[in-house]
């Protein structure tokens, strides 16, 4: 029994006792391994599904396959494991923001199964986000098992995400950057070291089980200055595509919610629509890694019109799959759309390009398009740059990749201040990055700010008695309570009695019930401090009584809020332990 207890508290093991960073690194390695395994598992099952369903591709009814897959995935999520559809990354960010990274254990495998059904059957979605939520849930549950605190748990959630992305793309830097830039949102050495380790372990697991492969290897590009300059146009185009994709995903979501049919039927409708598109343009089906590979190695031979149409079709198919209740992420669809947009741009340029100057090949523009699309959708330029460079090993395109990523992010940010992942969270006030005003105010709660040293008075008290009380009090506010019932009635501020203070005639003629202020604005212990502060600002108040069941609990004042806020800010933003 003792050994069991000892095992659950790794913080007390002699090796970790003097520095908890070592503990985090050790745990990160474990989390990285598990999330690597999760991603390999999903990858293998997708390949198996694709092989199995390949025999049915020539039948006319093949278009219902994505519908069946999406419906099954929706049924599984809704009825069997009782989880919401969607891609999962916002849920992870929400849990990091609000609940110290707490995620359910079942999240570590449910999305893998549901996304396998959706994508394997031909739905247009990506396997990355499901792997991210699995990895994050694994990290969170390992942290919970070992009784780690919130800060350590958040780091391990980031580790899970990093291991997953690193492993699925064979891209350790991209995994690390994604976890820090998108999931954790805090560039600190305490986070970076474990997340990097987890990413490396995730990638190594994938190496051991699947071999060291570059997902999208390509020929070496020859790039001159004119082609670099031309990438600016591509940035504008991919920004447009990202904005359109975001818009379509959201509007599909709204449209599907208006349909009164059950969730799984909606998912089936979306899936069948994708299947129909897929009959004419097979490029839209599945996660599309094969198509990306074709485009990046200049083997996608289609005319401008078809490629442009395919770009729109893929955007629509993704929106139909995810907006109507399928399960999966937007990473892979973004890469496909990005490469299609890149190839479209290449064909378009070829129409006007002077024959005397060599035009960069298709693969070059496809690659930049991917970088632009990822940066635009996620509004995470570093993730876009590193992911594309790592999955293609195209280090020679780093300069145009940076230009496209940064420009696309900037343009998208101008139109959509929050990325696709974060928009809902921002709208509902759930995005709380460490060290921000919203985070600090959400961490503080009313009971921590309560000042209880108020002297309570009664409405039938004479002013003379009250003046005696003022002498003993340190405060300017005096809550008034009913003598018999103890109910809170109102409040007296020193300013209220100032006019009568030097008039002894009033001492025995005025009762407090006559001078108290009622009704007054009150706060409740469960209120959000942010709301209370807003209320105080709107009404120009400096203090507010806190009331429970009509009983006075204490007072909260701006002075105390400032004092506690400052301490909280210091603890959250200074060097971490």
């Amino acid at each position, binding site marked *: 029994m003792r050994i069991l207890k000892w095992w659950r508290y790794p913080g007390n093991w002699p090796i970790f006792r003097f520095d908890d960073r070592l503990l985090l690194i050790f745990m990160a390695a474990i989390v990285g391994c598990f999330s690597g395994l999760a991603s390999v598992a999903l990858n293998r099952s997708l390949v198996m599904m694709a092989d199995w369903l390949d025999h049915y591709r020539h039948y006319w009814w093949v278009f219902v396959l994505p519908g069946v897959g999406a419906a099954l995935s929706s049924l599984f999520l809704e009825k069997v494991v009782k989880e919401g559809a969607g891609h999962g990354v916002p849920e992870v960010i929400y849990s990091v923001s609000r609940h110290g990274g707490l995620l359910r254990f079942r999240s570590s495998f449910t999305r893998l199964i549901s996304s396998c059904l959706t994508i394997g059957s031909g739905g247009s979605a990506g396997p990355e986000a499901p792997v991210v939520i699995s990895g994050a849930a694994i990290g969170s549950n390992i942290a919970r098992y070992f009784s780690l*605190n919130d*800060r350590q748990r958040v780091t391990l959630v980031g580790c899970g995400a990093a291991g997953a992305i690193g492993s699925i793309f064979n891209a350790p830097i991209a995994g690390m950057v994604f976890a820090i830039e998108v999931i954790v949102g805090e560039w600190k050495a305490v986070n970076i070291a474990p997340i990097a380790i987890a990413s490396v372990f995730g990638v190594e697991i994938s190496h051991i089980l699947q071999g060291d492969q570059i997902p999208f290897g390509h020929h070496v590009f020859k790039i001159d200055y004119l082609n670099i300059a031309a990438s600016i146009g591509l940035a504008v185009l991919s920004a447009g595509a990202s904005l359109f994709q975001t818009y379509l995903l959201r509007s599909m979501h709204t449209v599907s919610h208006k349909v009164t049919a059950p969730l799984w039927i909606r998912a089936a409708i979306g899936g069948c629509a994708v299947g129909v598109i897929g009959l004419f343009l097979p490029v839209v089906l599945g996660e599309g890694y094969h198509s990306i590979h074709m485009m990046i190695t200049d083997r996608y031979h289609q005319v401008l019109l078809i490629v442009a149409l395919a770009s729109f079709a893929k955007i629509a198919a993704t929106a139909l799959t995810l907006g109507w209740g399928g399960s999966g992420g937007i990473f892979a669809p973004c890469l496909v759309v990005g490469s299609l947009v890149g190839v479209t741009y290449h064909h378009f340029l070829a129409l006007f390009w002077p024959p005397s100057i060599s035009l960069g090949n298709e693969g070059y523009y496809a690659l930049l398009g991917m970088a632009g699309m990822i940066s635009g959708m996620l509004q995470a330029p570093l993730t876009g740059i590193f992911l594309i460079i790592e999955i293609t090993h195209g280090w020679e395109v780093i300069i145009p990749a940076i230009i496209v990523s940064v420009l696309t992010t900037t343009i998208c940010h101008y139109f959509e201040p929050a990325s696709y992942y974060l928009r809902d969270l921002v709208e509902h006030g759930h995005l709380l990055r460490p060290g921000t005003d919203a985070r600090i105010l959400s961490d503080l709660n009313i009971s921590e700010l309560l000042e209880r040293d108020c002297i309570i008075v009664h409405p039938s008290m004479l002013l*003379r008695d009250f*003046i005696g009380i003022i*002498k003993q009090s340190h405060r300017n506010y005096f809550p008034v309570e009913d003598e018999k019932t103890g109910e809170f009635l109102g409040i007296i501020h020193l300013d209220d009695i100032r006019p009568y203070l030097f008039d*002894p005639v009033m001492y025995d003629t005025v009762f407090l019930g006559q001078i108290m202020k009622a009704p007054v604005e009150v706060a409740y212990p469960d209120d959000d401090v942010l709301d209370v502060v807003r209320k105080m600002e709107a009404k120009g108040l400096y203090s507010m009584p806190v009331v429970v069941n009509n009983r006075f609990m204490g007072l909260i004042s701006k002075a105390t809020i400032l004092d*506690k806020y400052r301490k909280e800010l210091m603890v959250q933003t200074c060097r971490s332990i």
Partner: protein
Amino acid sequence: MKLTINDVARCLRLPVSTVERWIRQGRLPIQRTDDGYIFNESALEKWAAMYKLPFSLPEEVSETTQQTKTDNLLPAMKRGGLLYNIKGEDVETVLKNGVENIHMLSHNIKDTVYRGLLEREHMAPTGIGKGVAIPHPRDPLKDMISNALISTCFLETPVDFHAVDGMPVFVMFILLSPSTKTHLHLLSSLSFCIRNNPFVEFLKTAPDSRAFFSYISDFENRLVKGDRF
């Protein structure tokens, strides 16, 4: 040294709920055991210094609060003592003679005290009416005296202190205190006594110390009860 969660909260001057939250969020350096936490004082001190947060042990906090507790009227009056038949025709002389007769003051500070009293007297007369004056220096004496004292000086002949009501002063309370807070507290208590007319009449009889101190102790009891109006 090991502390409890309440000690830590008091050291940091924060509510216990904040400390609990900080532990949950992993912001405080603690050691977990199977049924709770262990707080290590030196680790916490180091941590607080790193974040520039105030951190001092509860014992020290209570000591400082005890120190700030002010003196009361009766002990201060007993320390200052009662002086009868102070000679002099004008303010300067009576003050000089009064200070000279205070036994509690050492010789080398008597001159400073006298100059302080005179300086204050020139700024505004300390005669508060009804034949009573409360001479005192403007600034507290700080390290020169350890405890506040009030010397009650009955003058041989009434002296004009330029009081508000123009009445010549027959008794003066020389009020000396180490801190402004004590000074204000004693001044307020003293003025409460003098507002009482029978007490002023009683003073005119130049009472002996026993009767005088019992009168004062009676006042002080009423003061503690908050019976000031």
